[in-house]
Protein backbone atom coordinates (compact mmCIF):
# COMPACT_ATOMS: atom_id res chain seq x y z
CA UNK A 1 0.00 0.00 0.00
CA UNK A 2 2.76 2.37 0.96
CA UNK A 3 4.59 1.55 -2.23
CA UNK A 4 1.54 2.30 -4.29
CA UNK A 5 1.14 5.72 -2.69
CA UNK A 6 4.73 6.59 -3.35
CA UNK A 7 4.34 5.71 -7.01
CA UNK A 8 1.23 7.82 -7.20
CA UNK A 9 2.89 10.93 -5.90
CA UNK A 10 5.80 10.48 -8.25
CA UNK A 11 3.53 10.21 -11.24
CA UNK A 12 1.52 13.25 -10.22
CA UNK A 13 4.57 15.36 -9.50
CA UNK A 14 3.53 18.61 -11.17
CA UNK A 15 6.79 20.48 -10.97
CA UNK A 16 9.10 18.10 -12.71
CA UNK A 17 11.58 20.19 -14.68
CA UNK A 18 13.65 18.29 -17.24
CA UNK A 19 17.36 19.01 -17.06
CA UNK A 20 18.29 20.85 -20.25
CA UNK A 21 21.88 21.66 -21.04
CA UNK A 22 22.11 25.42 -21.18
CA UNK A 23 23.58 27.06 -24.24
CA UNK A 24 26.24 29.72 -23.81
CA UNK A 25 24.58 33.11 -23.86
CA UNK A 26 26.83 35.26 -26.02
CA UNK A 27 25.08 38.50 -25.14
CA UNK A 28 25.81 38.01 -21.45
CA UNK A 29 29.37 36.93 -22.23
CA UNK A 30 30.13 40.03 -24.35
CA UNK A 31 28.54 42.38 -21.82
CA UNK A 32 30.49 40.81 -18.94
CA UNK A 33 33.86 41.33 -20.60
CA UNK A 34 34.24 45.08 -19.95
CA UNK A 35 33.02 44.50 -16.39
CA UNK A 36 35.61 41.77 -15.81
CA UNK A 37 38.23 44.05 -17.41
CA UNK A 38 37.43 46.83 -14.92
CA UNK A 39 37.52 44.41 -12.01
CA UNK A 40 41.00 43.28 -13.11
CA UNK A 41 42.13 46.90 -13.38
CA UNK A 42 40.75 47.62 -9.93
CA UNK A 43 42.57 44.64 -8.41
CA UNK A 44 45.92 44.65 -10.25
CA UNK A 45 46.19 48.18 -11.73
CA UNK A 46 47.34 49.94 -8.58
CA UNK A 47 50.09 47.29 -8.17
CA UNK A 48 51.50 48.00 -11.65
CA UNK A 49 51.17 51.78 -11.81
CA UNK A 50 52.85 53.96 -9.26
CA UNK A 51 50.44 56.48 -7.84
CA UNK A 52 50.59 58.77 -4.84
CA UNK A 53 47.45 60.87 -4.38
CA UNK A 54 49.29 63.70 -2.59
CA UNK A 55 52.07 64.13 -5.16
CA UNK A 56 52.19 67.48 -6.94
CA UNK A 57 54.12 68.22 -10.10
CA UNK A 58 53.30 71.83 -10.97
CA UNK A 59 55.65 71.90 -13.98
CA UNK A 60 53.52 69.27 -15.73
CA UNK A 61 50.02 70.38 -14.76
CA UNK A 62 47.06 70.50 -17.19
CA UNK A 63 48.92 68.69 -20.00
CA UNK A 64 46.65 67.37 -22.79
CA UNK A 65 46.28 63.62 -23.47
CA UNK A 66 49.36 62.04 -25.08
CA UNK A 67 51.86 64.48 -23.61
CA UNK A 68 55.39 63.29 -22.91
CA UNK A 69 56.71 63.71 -19.37
CA UNK A 70 60.34 62.56 -19.40
CA UNK A 71 60.25 58.81 -20.20
CA UNK A 72 56.60 58.53 -19.45
CA UNK A 73 53.60 59.29 -21.66
CA UNK A 74 50.50 60.73 -20.02
CA UNK A 75 48.00 59.00 -22.35
CA UNK A 76 45.01 60.72 -20.80
CA UNK A 77 46.77 63.96 -19.83
CA UNK A 78 47.51 65.42 -16.41
CA UNK A 79 45.31 67.25 -13.93
CA UNK A 80 45.48 70.58 -12.07
CA UNK A 81 48.29 69.41 -9.76
CA UNK A 82 50.23 67.46 -12.38
CA UNK A 83 48.85 63.99 -11.59
CA UNK A 84 48.54 61.49 -14.42
CA UNK A 85 44.81 61.15 -15.19
CA UNK A 86 45.13 57.49 -16.26
CA UNK A 87 46.79 56.61 -12.95
CA UNK A 88 44.03 58.44 -11.11
CA UNK A 89 41.34 56.56 -13.01
CA UNK A 90 42.98 53.21 -12.23
CA UNK A 91 43.27 54.13 -8.57
CA UNK A 92 39.67 55.43 -8.64
CA UNK A 93 38.45 52.15 -10.16
CA UNK A 94 39.60 50.35 -7.02
CA UNK A 95 37.73 52.81 -4.77
CA UNK A 96 34.52 52.85 -6.84
CA UNK A 97 34.37 49.07 -7.24
CA UNK A 98 35.30 48.35 -3.61
CA UNK A 99 32.49 50.61 -2.42
CA UNK A 100 30.04 48.92 -4.80
CA UNK A 101 31.12 45.41 -3.75
CA UNK A 102 31.06 46.22 -0.03
CA UNK A 103 27.65 47.89 -0.29
CA UNK A 104 26.06 45.01 -2.17
CA UNK A 105 27.63 42.58 0.31
CA UNK A 106 26.56 44.44 3.48
CA UNK A 107 23.35 46.13 2.36
CA UNK A 108 22.40 43.12 0.28
CA UNK A 109 23.23 40.71 3.10
CA UNK A 110 21.05 42.62 5.56
CA UNK A 111 18.29 42.84 2.96
CA UNK A 112 18.42 39.10 2.24
CA UNK A 113 18.25 38.17 5.94
CA UNK A 114 15.38 40.56 6.66
CA UNK A 115 13.57 39.48 3.49
CA UNK A 116 13.87 35.80 4.44
CA UNK A 117 12.63 36.43 8.00
CA UNK A 118 9.83 38.68 6.77
CA UNK A 119 8.58 36.29 4.10
CA UNK A 120 9.02 33.08 6.11
CA UNK A 121 7.58 34.06 9.48
CA UNK A 122 5.03 36.63 8.31
CA UNK A 123 2.91 38.13 11.08
CA UNK A 124 4.29 41.02 13.11
CA UNK A 125 7.90 40.38 11.96
CA UNK A 126 6.75 40.92 8.38
CA UNK A 127 4.65 43.96 9.32
CA UNK A 128 7.48 45.71 11.17
CA UNK A 129 10.14 45.06 8.53
CA UNK A 130 7.93 46.00 5.60
CA UNK A 131 6.60 49.17 7.27
CA UNK A 132 10.19 50.30 7.87
CA UNK A 133 10.86 49.58 4.19
CA UNK A 134 7.75 51.59 3.21
CA UNK A 135 8.82 54.57 5.29
CA UNK A 136 12.26 54.45 3.75
CA UNK A 137 10.80 54.30 0.25
CA UNK A 138 8.73 57.39 1.03
CA UNK A 139 12.04 59.25 0.81
CA UNK A 140 13.70 59.72 -2.56
CA UNK A 141 16.76 57.43 -2.24
CA UNK A 142 19.27 60.10 -3.15
CA UNK A 143 17.80 62.44 -0.53
CA UNK A 144 18.25 59.90 2.25
CA UNK A 145 21.79 59.18 1.03
CA UNK A 146 22.65 62.90 1.01
CA UNK A 147 21.24 63.31 4.53
CA UNK A 148 23.15 60.38 6.02
CA UNK A 149 26.40 60.95 4.11
CA UNK A 150 26.29 64.68 4.84
CA UNK A 151 25.95 64.06 8.56
CA UNK A 152 28.58 61.30 8.72
CA UNK A 153 31.17 63.23 6.70
CA UNK A 154 33.27 62.13 3.73
CA UNK A 155 35.08 58.78 4.08
CA UNK A 156 35.04 55.47 2.23
CA UNK A 157 33.54 53.64 5.23
CA UNK A 158 30.80 56.23 5.64
CA UNK A 159 29.84 55.96 1.96
CA UNK A 160 29.51 52.19 2.35
CA UNK A 161 27.36 52.63 5.49
CA UNK A 162 25.19 55.22 3.76
CA UNK A 163 24.60 53.21 0.61
CA UNK A 164 23.99 49.99 2.56
CA UNK A 165 21.26 51.74 4.55
CA UNK A 166 19.63 53.09 1.41
CA UNK A 167 19.87 49.85 -0.61
CA UNK A 168 18.78 47.00 1.68
CA UNK A 169 15.08 47.58 0.93
CA UNK A 170 15.19 46.36 -2.67
CA UNK A 171 16.96 43.15 -1.69
CA UNK A 172 14.54 42.56 1.18
CA UNK A 173 11.48 43.02 -1.03
CA UNK A 174 12.67 40.67 -3.75
CA UNK A 175 13.77 37.95 -1.30
CA UNK A 176 10.54 38.31 0.67
CA UNK A 177 8.51 37.77 -2.50
CA UNK A 178 10.54 34.70 -3.50
CA UNK A 179 10.33 33.32 0.05
CA UNK A 180 6.55 33.68 0.24
CA UNK A 181 6.08 31.82 -3.03
CA UNK A 182 8.58 29.11 -2.00
CA UNK A 183 7.50 28.44 1.58
CA UNK A 184 4.27 26.63 0.66
CA UNK A 185 5.85 24.43 -1.99
CA UNK A 186 5.86 20.68 -1.42
CA UNK A 187 9.60 20.34 -0.96
CA UNK A 188 9.54 22.85 1.90
CA UNK A 189 6.54 21.11 3.45
CA UNK A 190 8.34 17.78 3.28
CA UNK A 191 11.40 19.27 4.95
CA UNK A 192 9.12 20.56 7.70
CA UNK A 193 7.54 17.14 8.08
CA UNK A 194 10.96 15.52 8.47
CA UNK A 195 11.52 17.94 11.35
CA UNK A 196 14.06 20.31 9.85
CA UNK A 197 14.66 23.45 11.91
CA UNK A 198 13.58 26.90 10.69
CA UNK A 199 17.22 27.79 10.17
CA UNK A 200 17.82 24.70 8.05
CA UNK A 201 14.69 25.25 5.98
CA UNK A 202 15.61 28.87 5.36
CA UNK A 203 19.23 28.24 4.40
CA UNK A 204 19.01 24.87 2.63
CA UNK A 205 15.58 24.99 1.01
CA UNK A 206 14.36 28.57 0.59
CA UNK A 207 17.56 30.56 0.05
CA UNK A 208 18.60 28.55 -3.04
CA UNK A 209 15.22 29.36 -4.65
CA UNK A 210 15.86 33.06 -4.06
CA UNK A 211 19.26 33.02 -5.76
CA UNK A 212 18.04 33.44 -9.32
CA UNK A 213 15.99 36.64 -8.74
CA UNK A 214 18.74 37.78 -6.38
CA UNK A 215 21.35 37.57 -9.12
CA UNK A 216 19.33 40.02 -11.22
CA UNK A 217 18.88 42.41 -8.30
CA UNK A 218 22.58 42.29 -7.44
CA UNK A 219 23.57 43.17 -11.02
CA UNK A 220 21.10 46.03 -11.28
CA UNK A 221 22.04 47.30 -7.82
CA UNK A 222 25.79 47.27 -8.54
CA UNK A 223 25.17 49.72 -11.38
CA UNK A 224 22.93 51.90 -9.20
CA UNK A 225 25.39 51.82 -6.29
CA UNK A 226 28.30 52.88 -8.51
CA UNK A 227 26.23 55.83 -9.77
CA UNK A 228 25.05 56.74 -6.25
CA UNK A 229 28.59 56.64 -4.91
CA UNK A 230 29.83 58.77 -7.81
CA UNK A 231 26.98 61.24 -7.26
CA UNK A 232 27.71 61.53 -3.52
CA UNK A 233 31.43 61.98 -4.22
CA UNK A 234 30.61 64.55 -6.88
CA UNK A 235 28.62 66.52 -4.28
CA UNK A 236 31.61 66.37 -1.90
CA UNK A 237 29.79 63.97 0.46
CA UNK A 238 31.42 60.73 -0.69
CA UNK A 239 35.02 59.61 -0.79
CA UNK A 240 37.75 61.94 0.54
CA UNK A 241 40.36 63.48 -1.86
CA UNK A 242 43.15 61.09 -0.76
CA UNK A 243 40.95 58.17 -1.80
CA UNK A 244 39.32 59.81 -4.78
CA UNK A 245 36.69 57.76 -6.61
CA UNK A 246 35.66 58.51 -10.19
CA UNK A 247 32.86 60.79 -9.01
CA UNK A 248 35.26 62.99 -7.06
CA UNK A 249 37.72 63.10 -10.00
CA UNK A 250 34.91 64.36 -12.25
CA UNK A 251 33.97 66.94 -9.65
CA UNK A 252 37.55 68.17 -9.16
CA UNK A 253 38.02 68.61 -12.91
CA UNK A 254 34.84 70.65 -13.27
CA UNK A 255 36.60 73.98 -12.58
CA UNK A 256 38.99 73.30 -15.47
CA UNK A 257 36.37 72.19 -17.98
CA UNK A 258 37.16 74.97 -20.49
CA UNK A 259 40.97 74.69 -20.31
CA UNK A 260 41.50 70.98 -19.54
CA UNK A 261 38.35 69.02 -20.39
CA UNK A 262 40.08 65.63 -20.05
CA UNK A 263 40.26 65.81 -16.24
CA UNK A 264 36.47 65.46 -15.94
CA UNK A 265 35.62 63.72 -19.18
CA UNK A 266 38.06 60.77 -18.95
CA UNK A 267 36.95 59.36 -15.56
CA UNK A 268 33.38 59.96 -16.71
CA UNK A 269 33.93 57.81 -19.79
CA UNK A 270 35.31 55.01 -17.59
CA UNK A 271 32.30 55.36 -15.30
CA UNK A 272 29.85 55.46 -18.21
CA UNK A 273 31.30 52.36 -19.91
CA UNK A 274 31.16 50.35 -16.69
CA UNK A 275 27.68 51.46 -15.66
CA UNK A 276 26.18 51.07 -19.13
CA UNK A 277 27.60 47.53 -19.41
CA UNK A 278 26.32 46.59 -15.96
CA UNK A 279 22.95 48.13 -16.85
CA UNK A 280 22.63 46.12 -20.07
CA UNK A 281 23.83 43.02 -18.26
CA UNK A 282 21.17 43.45 -15.58
CA UNK A 283 18.51 43.99 -18.22
CA UNK A 284 19.55 40.87 -20.15
CA UNK A 285 19.67 38.74 -17.00
CA UNK A 286 16.23 39.97 -16.03
CA UNK A 287 14.76 39.08 -19.41
CA UNK A 288 16.46 35.69 -19.23
CA UNK A 289 15.35 34.77 -15.75
CA UNK A 290 11.80 36.07 -15.80
CA UNK A 291 10.08 38.14 -18.46
CA UNK A 292 7.38 39.15 -15.98
CA UNK A 293 9.80 40.60 -13.43
CA UNK A 294 9.98 43.79 -15.48
CA UNK A 295 8.94 46.75 -13.44
Amino acid at each position, binding site marked *: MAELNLNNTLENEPEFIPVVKKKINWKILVLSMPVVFFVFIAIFGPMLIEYNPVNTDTANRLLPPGSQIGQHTAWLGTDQIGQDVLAQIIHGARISLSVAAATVLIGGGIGVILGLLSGYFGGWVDTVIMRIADIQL*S*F*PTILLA*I*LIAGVLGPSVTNVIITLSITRWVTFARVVRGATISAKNKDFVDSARVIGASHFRILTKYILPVCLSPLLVVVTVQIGLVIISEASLSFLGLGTPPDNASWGLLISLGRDY*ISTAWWISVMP*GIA*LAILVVCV*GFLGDTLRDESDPYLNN
Partner: protein
Amino acid sequence: MASYLIRRFFYSLFVIWGAITIIFAVLRIIPGDPAAVMLGSNATPEQIHSLNESLGLNKPLFVQYGQFIVDVLRLDFGESFRLGGPALTHVLERLPFTITLAFTAILFAIIISFPLGIQAARKPNGAADRIISFVSLFGQSLPTFWVGIVLILIFSRVLGILPSAGAGSVAHLIMPAFTLCLPFIGMIVRLVRSGILEELRQGYVQTARSKGLKQNFILYIHVLRNALIPVVTVLGLLLGEFIGSAIIIEVVFSWPGIGRLLINSILYRDYAVVQAAIALIAGIYIILNLIVDILYGYIDPRIRVEES
Protein backbone atom coordinates in the same frame (compact mmCIF):
# COMPACT_ATOMS: atom_id res chain seq x y z
CA MET B 1 -14.34 54.75 -2.11
CA ALA B 2 -14.58 56.66 1.16
CA SER B 3 -12.95 53.88 3.17
CA TYR B 4 -10.16 53.62 0.59
CA LEU B 5 -9.53 57.37 0.83
CA ILE B 6 -9.50 57.30 4.62
CA ARG B 7 -7.14 54.32 4.75
CA ARG B 8 -4.84 55.90 2.21
CA PHE B 9 -4.88 59.22 4.11
CA PHE B 10 -3.97 57.62 7.43
CA TYR B 11 -1.26 55.62 5.73
CA SER B 12 0.24 58.88 4.42
CA LEU B 13 0.14 60.35 7.94
CA PHE B 14 2.02 57.26 9.17
CA VAL B 15 4.63 57.66 6.45
CA ILE B 16 5.02 61.38 7.23
CA TRP B 17 5.59 60.46 10.88
CA GLY B 18 8.20 57.94 9.72
CA ALA B 19 9.93 60.53 7.56
CA ILE B 20 10.10 63.01 10.45
CA THR B 21 11.50 60.26 12.67
CA ILE B 22 14.17 59.38 10.10
CA ILE B 23 15.27 63.04 9.89
CA PHE B 24 15.41 63.24 13.68
CA ALA B 25 17.27 59.96 14.02
CA VAL B 26 19.91 60.84 11.44
CA LEU B 27 20.49 64.39 12.70
CA ARG B 28 20.47 63.71 16.45
CA ILE B 29 21.72 60.19 17.06
CA ILE B 30 24.90 60.86 15.13
CA PRO B 31 28.32 60.39 16.65
CA GLY B 32 29.72 63.70 17.87
CA ASP B 33 28.28 66.81 19.41
CA PRO B 34 26.12 68.73 16.88
CA ALA B 35 26.83 72.03 18.61
CA ALA B 36 30.58 71.45 18.48
CA VAL B 37 30.33 70.52 14.82
CA MET B 38 28.22 73.59 14.05
CA LEU B 39 30.56 76.00 15.82
CA GLY B 40 33.75 74.58 14.32
CA SER B 41 37.08 73.75 15.92
CA ASN B 42 37.69 77.23 17.43
CA ALA B 43 34.68 77.12 19.75
CA THR B 44 35.18 77.31 23.53
CA PRO B 45 33.40 74.80 25.81
CA GLU B 46 31.24 77.68 27.11
CA GLN B 47 30.03 78.53 23.61
CA ILE B 48 29.25 74.87 22.91
CA HIS B 49 27.36 74.60 26.19
CA SER B 50 25.27 77.71 25.55
CA LEU B 51 24.42 76.62 22.00
CA ASN B 52 23.41 73.19 23.33
CA GLU B 53 21.27 74.99 25.90
CA SER B 54 19.54 77.20 23.32
CA LEU B 55 18.97 74.30 20.88
CA GLY B 56 17.67 72.09 23.67
CA LEU B 57 20.31 69.46 22.89
CA ASN B 58 21.14 68.75 26.54
CA LYS B 59 17.64 67.44 27.28
CA PRO B 60 16.83 63.68 27.20
CA LEU B 61 16.47 62.26 23.70
CA PHE B 62 12.74 61.50 23.94
CA VAL B 63 12.01 65.06 25.11
CA GLN B 64 13.98 66.35 22.13
CA TYR B 65 12.02 63.97 19.87
CA GLY B 66 8.67 65.22 21.15
CA GLN B 67 9.80 68.82 20.79
CA PHE B 68 11.04 68.07 17.26
CA ILE B 69 7.69 66.63 16.15
CA VAL B 70 5.81 69.60 17.64
CA ASP B 71 8.20 72.00 15.88
CA VAL B 72 7.84 70.27 12.53
CA LEU B 73 4.05 70.24 12.78
CA ARG B 74 4.20 74.00 13.46
CA LEU B 75 6.56 74.24 10.45
CA ASP B 76 9.20 75.70 12.75
CA PHE B 77 12.58 74.30 11.69
CA GLY B 78 14.69 76.85 13.56
CA GLU B 79 16.87 79.72 12.44
CA SER B 80 19.56 79.42 9.80
CA PHE B 81 22.84 80.44 11.44
CA ARG B 82 24.49 80.94 8.06
CA LEU B 83 21.80 82.98 6.26
CA GLY B 84 19.86 84.38 9.24
CA GLY B 85 16.08 84.24 9.60
CA PRO B 86 13.78 81.21 9.68
CA ALA B 87 15.17 78.21 7.76
CA LEU B 88 11.85 77.45 6.10
CA THR B 89 11.69 80.92 4.51
CA HIS B 90 14.99 80.33 2.73
CA VAL B 91 13.85 76.95 1.49
CA LEU B 92 10.49 78.28 0.27
CA GLU B 93 12.29 81.08 -1.58
CA ARG B 94 14.13 78.43 -3.59
CA LEU B 95 11.10 76.17 -4.13
CA PRO B 96 9.80 77.90 -7.31
CA PHE B 97 13.14 77.31 -9.04
CA THR B 98 13.13 73.59 -8.26
CA ILE B 99 9.47 73.24 -9.27
CA THR B 100 10.14 75.09 -12.55
CA LEU B 101 13.07 72.81 -13.30
CA ALA B 102 11.12 69.65 -12.45
CA PHE B 103 8.07 70.68 -14.53
CA THR B 104 10.19 71.63 -17.54
CA ALA B 105 11.99 68.29 -17.26
CA ILE B 106 8.66 66.44 -17.18
CA LEU B 107 7.56 68.40 -20.25
CA PHE B 108 10.80 67.49 -22.05
CA ALA B 109 10.37 63.87 -21.03
CA ILE B 110 6.84 63.83 -22.49
CA ILE B 111 7.86 65.56 -25.72
CA ILE B 112 10.75 63.13 -26.25
CA SER B 113 9.34 59.84 -25.00
CA PHE B 114 5.70 59.84 -26.18
CA PRO B 115 6.55 59.83 -29.92
CA LEU B 116 9.30 57.27 -29.26
CA GLY B 117 6.92 55.02 -27.31
CA ILE B 118 4.26 55.26 -30.03
CA GLN B 119 6.84 54.46 -32.72
CA ALA B 120 8.13 51.50 -30.71
CA ALA B 121 4.59 50.13 -30.29
CA ARG B 122 3.84 50.28 -34.03
CA LYS B 123 6.02 47.26 -34.69
CA PRO B 124 6.92 45.47 -31.47
CA ASN B 125 10.41 43.94 -31.67
CA GLY B 126 10.97 45.62 -35.03
CA ALA B 127 14.11 47.57 -35.84
CA ALA B 128 12.78 50.90 -34.55
CA ASP B 129 11.62 49.27 -31.31
CA ARG B 130 15.02 47.71 -30.71
CA ILE B 131 16.94 50.92 -31.42
CA ILE B 132 14.63 52.95 -29.20
CA SER B 133 14.94 50.49 -26.33
CA PHE B 134 18.74 50.41 -26.72
CA VAL B 135 19.09 54.21 -26.73
CA SER B 136 16.73 54.70 -23.80
CA LEU B 137 18.51 52.08 -21.70
CA PHE B 138 21.76 53.85 -22.56
CA GLY B 139 20.33 57.17 -21.35
CA GLN B 140 19.11 55.46 -18.19
CA SER B 141 22.57 54.16 -17.33
CA LEU B 142 24.67 57.29 -17.89
CA PRO B 143 25.55 59.23 -14.72
CA THR B 144 23.49 62.43 -15.01
CA PHE B 145 25.99 64.81 -13.41
CA TRP B 146 28.64 63.75 -15.92
CA VAL B 147 26.22 64.16 -18.83
CA GLY B 148 25.58 67.67 -17.51
CA ILE B 149 29.29 68.48 -17.47
CA VAL B 150 29.75 67.16 -21.01
CA LEU B 151 26.75 69.22 -22.20
CA ILE B 152 28.29 72.32 -20.59
CA LEU B 153 31.57 71.55 -22.34
CA ILE B 154 29.87 71.17 -25.75
CA PHE B 155 27.12 73.79 -25.70
CA SER B 156 28.66 76.47 -23.46
CA ARG B 157 32.42 76.23 -23.87
CA VAL B 158 32.84 74.97 -27.44
CA LEU B 159 29.71 76.14 -29.26
CA GLY B 160 28.89 78.97 -26.87
CA ILE B 161 25.14 78.86 -27.52
CA LEU B 162 23.76 78.08 -24.04
CA PRO B 163 24.60 79.59 -20.64
CA SER B 164 26.42 77.12 -18.36
CA ALA B 165 25.18 78.29 -14.97
CA GLY B 166 22.52 80.23 -13.14
CA ALA B 167 18.87 80.99 -13.87
CA GLY B 168 16.87 83.82 -15.37
CA SER B 169 15.97 82.94 -18.94
CA VAL B 170 14.49 80.07 -20.93
CA ALA B 171 17.97 79.33 -22.32
CA HIS B 172 19.17 78.67 -18.76
CA LEU B 173 16.54 75.95 -18.37
CA ILE B 174 17.27 73.89 -21.46
CA MET B 175 20.39 71.96 -20.41
CA PRO B 176 19.42 71.27 -16.76
CA ALA B 177 15.92 70.14 -17.75
CA PHE B 178 17.21 67.87 -20.50
CA THR B 179 19.85 66.33 -18.21
CA LEU B 180 17.25 65.81 -15.49
CA CYS B 181 14.76 64.03 -17.76
CA LEU B 182 17.30 61.80 -19.52
CA PRO B 183 17.25 58.83 -17.10
CA PHE B 184 13.44 58.81 -17.03
CA ILE B 185 12.93 58.77 -20.80
CA GLY B 186 13.57 55.03 -21.08
CA MET B 187 11.04 54.28 -18.36
CA ILE B 188 8.30 56.47 -19.88
CA VAL B 189 8.93 55.04 -23.37
CA ARG B 190 8.41 51.55 -21.95
CA LEU B 191 5.22 52.65 -20.18
CA VAL B 192 3.76 54.26 -23.34
CA ARG B 193 4.75 51.27 -25.45
CA SER B 194 3.28 48.63 -23.16
CA GLY B 195 0.17 50.78 -22.55
CA ILE B 196 -0.54 51.00 -26.28
CA LEU B 197 0.18 47.31 -26.91
CA GLU B 198 -2.14 46.36 -24.06
CA GLU B 199 -4.89 48.58 -25.45
CA LEU B 200 -4.48 47.30 -29.02
CA ARG B 201 -5.59 43.85 -27.82
CA GLN B 202 -8.96 45.19 -26.70
CA GLY B 203 -12.16 44.33 -28.54
CA TYR B 204 -13.02 47.88 -29.52
CA VAL B 205 -9.88 48.06 -31.63
CA GLN B 206 -11.05 45.07 -33.66
CA THR B 207 -14.45 46.69 -34.03
CA ALA B 208 -12.82 49.88 -35.27
CA ARG B 209 -10.69 47.90 -37.69
CA SER B 210 -13.65 45.97 -39.04
CA LYS B 211 -15.43 49.28 -39.59
CA GLY B 212 -12.56 50.02 -41.99
CA LEU B 213 -10.94 52.82 -40.00
CA LYS B 214 -7.34 53.66 -40.85
CA GLN B 215 -4.65 52.28 -38.52
CA ASN B 216 -3.40 55.78 -37.63
CA PHE B 217 -6.92 57.00 -36.88
CA ILE B 218 -7.47 54.08 -34.50
CA LEU B 219 -4.07 54.64 -32.88
CA TYR B 220 -4.30 58.38 -32.29
CA ILE B 221 -8.06 58.85 -31.75
CA HIS B 222 -9.11 55.67 -29.95
CA VAL B 223 -6.13 53.89 -28.46
CA LEU B 224 -3.85 56.69 -27.36
CA ARG B 225 -6.44 58.33 -25.12
CA ASN B 226 -7.02 55.15 -23.16
CA ALA B 227 -3.39 54.07 -23.13
CA LEU B 228 -2.14 57.36 -21.76
CA ILE B 229 -4.34 57.52 -18.65
CA PRO B 230 -2.06 55.28 -16.55
CA VAL B 231 1.03 56.91 -18.04
CA VAL B 232 -0.13 60.38 -17.01
CA THR B 233 -0.81 59.14 -13.50
CA VAL B 234 2.67 57.68 -13.25
CA LEU B 235 4.07 61.00 -14.45
CA GLY B 236 2.56 62.57 -11.35
CA LEU B 237 4.50 60.11 -9.27
CA LEU B 238 7.63 60.80 -11.29
CA LEU B 239 7.40 64.51 -10.45
CA GLY B 240 8.50 63.55 -6.94
CA GLU B 241 11.43 61.56 -8.35
CA PHE B 242 12.35 64.53 -10.53
CA ILE B 243 12.47 66.84 -7.51
CA GLY B 244 14.74 64.36 -5.72
CA SER B 245 17.07 63.93 -8.71
CA ALA B 246 17.10 67.69 -9.30
CA ILE B 247 19.43 68.08 -6.28
CA ILE B 248 22.49 66.92 -8.25
CA ILE B 249 21.48 68.67 -11.47
CA GLU B 250 21.10 71.95 -9.57
CA VAL B 251 24.67 71.63 -8.30
CA VAL B 252 26.03 70.87 -11.78
CA PHE B 253 24.32 73.86 -13.39
CA SER B 254 24.43 76.19 -10.34
CA TRP B 255 20.62 76.34 -10.49
CA PRO B 256 19.39 78.30 -7.44
CA GLY B 257 16.88 75.67 -6.25
CA ILE B 258 16.37 73.74 -3.01
CA GLY B 259 18.94 71.09 -3.95
CA ARG B 260 21.87 73.48 -4.16
CA LEU B 261 20.75 75.19 -0.95
CA LEU B 262 20.57 71.77 0.72
CA ILE B 263 24.06 70.72 -0.37
CA ASN B 264 25.60 74.06 0.63
CA SER B 265 23.85 73.91 4.00
CA ILE B 266 25.15 70.39 4.60
CA LEU B 267 28.69 71.46 3.76
CA TYR B 268 28.36 74.43 6.18
CA ARG B 269 26.61 72.27 8.83
CA ASP B 270 23.59 74.59 8.79
CA TYR B 271 21.26 71.86 10.07
CA ALA B 272 18.17 74.05 10.44
CA VAL B 273 18.06 74.59 6.68
CA VAL B 274 18.99 70.94 6.05
CA GLN B 275 16.03 69.61 8.02
CA ALA B 276 13.65 72.18 6.52
CA ALA B 277 14.73 71.33 2.95
CA ILE B 278 14.57 67.58 3.48
CA ALA B 279 11.22 67.74 5.26
CA LEU B 280 9.79 69.86 2.44
CA ILE B 281 11.03 67.56 -0.35
CA ALA B 282 9.88 64.44 1.52
CA GLY B 283 6.52 66.10 2.22
CA ILE B 284 5.99 66.96 -1.45
CA TYR B 285 6.99 63.44 -2.42
CA ILE B 286 4.55 61.81 0.02
CA ILE B 287 1.66 64.12 -0.93
CA LEU B 288 2.24 63.45 -4.65
CA ASN B 289 2.17 59.73 -3.87
CA LEU B 290 -1.13 60.17 -2.09
CA ILE B 291 -2.66 62.20 -4.94
CA VAL B 292 -1.53 59.65 -7.53
CA ASP B 293 -2.99 56.76 -5.50
CA ILE B 294 -6.31 58.57 -5.17
CA LEU B 295 -6.37 59.34 -8.90
CA TYR B 296 -5.60 55.71 -9.62
CA GLY B 297 -8.51 54.69 -7.45
CA TYR B 298 -10.84 56.98 -9.42
CA ILE B 299 -9.59 55.84 -12.82
CA ASP B 300 -9.36 52.14 -12.14
CA PRO B 301 -12.15 50.84 -9.87
CA ARG B 302 -10.42 47.45 -9.59
CA ILE B 303 -7.81 48.98 -7.26
CA ARG B 304 -10.48 50.16 -4.83
CA VAL B 305 -12.08 46.74 -4.71
CA GLU B 306 -8.73 45.04 -4.13
CA GLU B 307 -7.88 47.37 -1.26
CA SER B 308 -11.12 46.78 0.60
